[in-house]
């Protein structure tokens, strides 16, 4: 069943069906990780959580994140999150999102490990940036140095538009920016987070998702633009038409074609989690349309 009626209104039955379907599939993912914790399952949970936290105040977001909160709180009580975080630095990102979702839980172990600089540091990206800048400088090429990291990030993000082609990196970048914007606006952390609101890259990626009929990215990008980066009228209309043509179920949001690189340097993406991630963003977009 499609999410929009022929008149263009949101079909409440389809909307309810989508949320119920998502709750069931999300529960399966959470149960899989609970029963047999592994990197792959963590990446599945993380890919969904990454989108879910951006809509936790929306009606569908409340329902979906309630499941995640419950599971994350349980993993926290079991000490699973700190074990995961301690075991591999590269798992810190997803663990931190889950810790946030777990709500007010006992963070004493996390705090102790963080105070000892044993977790919560991801040196690799910063070191890589430093290293590249130093190598470039040695070659006589002035490069953007990490000293400007706290400057407005609009330009740095939007300049991604000058790179050929797109892959999961572009989308993850925008999700990260949206997280930072949300934390800055609602978390009282504006002094710790660079200001800025990219526009060119989000609009460009949404345009490309429409032109390439990339149904996996489309709901995420239309939600991000609607909520964070601005949604131009005609682009919003085209997205609504395309999303109205597919059934409101995670099965409609297959991963991008094989020529889109999906694996990240630091984490992998399973097809199941990508479908649920996109359907979750679609539900959030519908919520925004009903606001």
């Amino acid at each position, binding site marked *: 069943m499609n999410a929009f009626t022929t008149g263009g209104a949101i079909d409440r039955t389809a909307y309810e069906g989508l949320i119920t379907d998502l709750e069931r599939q999300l529960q399966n993912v959470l149960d899989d990780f609970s029963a047999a914790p592994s990197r792959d399952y963590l990446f599945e949970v993380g890919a969904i959580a990454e989108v879910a936290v951006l809509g936790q105040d929306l009606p569908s977001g409340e329902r979906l994140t309630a499941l995640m909160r419950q599971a994350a709180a349980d993993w926290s009580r079991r000490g699973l999150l700190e074990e995961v975080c301690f075991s591999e630095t590269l798992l810190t990102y997803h663990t931190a999102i889950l810790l946030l979702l777990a709500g007010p839980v006992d963070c004493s172990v996390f705090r102790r490990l963080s105070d000892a600089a044993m977790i919560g540091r991801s040196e690799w990206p910063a070191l890589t940036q430093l290293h590249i800048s130093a190598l470039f400088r040695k070659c006589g090429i002035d490069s953007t140095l990490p000293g400007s990291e706290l400057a407005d990030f609009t330009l740095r993000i939007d300049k991604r538009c000058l790179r050929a082609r797109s892959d999961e990196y572009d989308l993850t970048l925008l999700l990260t920016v949206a997280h930072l914007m949300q934390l800055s606006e609602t978390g009282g952390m504006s002094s710790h987070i660079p200001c800025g609101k990219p526009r060119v890259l989000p609009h460009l990626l949404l345009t490309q998702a*429409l032109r390439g009929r990339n149904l996996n990215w489309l709901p995420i990008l239309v939600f991000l633009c609607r909520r964070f980066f601005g949604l131009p*009228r005609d682009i919003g209309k085209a997205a609504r038409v395309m999303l109205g043509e597919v059934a409101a179920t995670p099965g409609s949001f297959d991963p991008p074609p094989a020529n889109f690189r999906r694996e990240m340097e630091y984490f992998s993406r399973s097809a199941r989690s990508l479908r649920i991630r996109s359907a979750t963003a679609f539900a959030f977009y519908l919520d925004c349309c009903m606001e």
Partner: protein
Amino acid sequence: MEIGNLLTPLQAGRTDEYLRSVAARYATPAADLQSLFGRCCLVATPAFRDADGVDPAHFRADMESYADRVVADPHADQLGLDPLLVVESAVMLRKAGVEVALNHLIGKIAEELSAQPRRVQSMGRVQLVAKRLRELGRQIESVSPHRAAADLLQNPHTWLTAPLVELADLIDHLMASGVQLDADQSHLLSLIALGELRNYRVDIGSKALRLVIMQGIVEEDTVEALRYVAAQRRRDGGYGFANPFRDPETEAAPPDLGFHLPMTLNAVWLFHTVLTESVNQNAQAVQVVAQ
């Protein structure tokens, strides 16, 4: 909105040399025409006309020789030549005050076009050729755009999902009509252009960009797309960075013919448009900066 120098006179000379070398190396009618058209864009741009290496007299001799060969060829219609490039060349040269004898070839194209059925004459590209022929003083009847293009013109949001062929036809129609684009339409087309350029669909990306520069409102997205093209300059004077890891066995044509020559021709056409044909105030601002 500073975009720096799109192309310096010195670089223009190098690009002219590249275009001549590709035509000499492959010696096919299509490569000859593309090379000549690129050189025409340079010769017809006042800022480049006296550049070292851009020689109007040499160009004139090559262009006239080419036109004579085509007119004399009894199988000219089987050469796969693009009449738009010929008529665009003639218009550019006339505007620039560069005299090149192309009357016979232009007359032949006008004759062929008038003999086409109305269905063919209603296509965007043919309408654009007709418009250019009228600018050259030829009597060509006006024909209304066909229905599908007329519908697309009325609904900008459908541009985002139109197949490439329809989108190209639409852009040709808009160019042929000379209609001014509003800010929303310009924004959409600039994003589409940048997206297509990132995916190496250079023809359609550059065409959309030329339309915005000539008839639209130049904004940040338009300038980024221009930067994208300008940044593709190679040390041999050609344009386009190709992935060196691609399997050469899968390429339909040698890289120069299949990629670098079309990219170079589109780049210099775009620069010519920015530097000579901008009609609106924003584009003039870009033009000033570029010079």
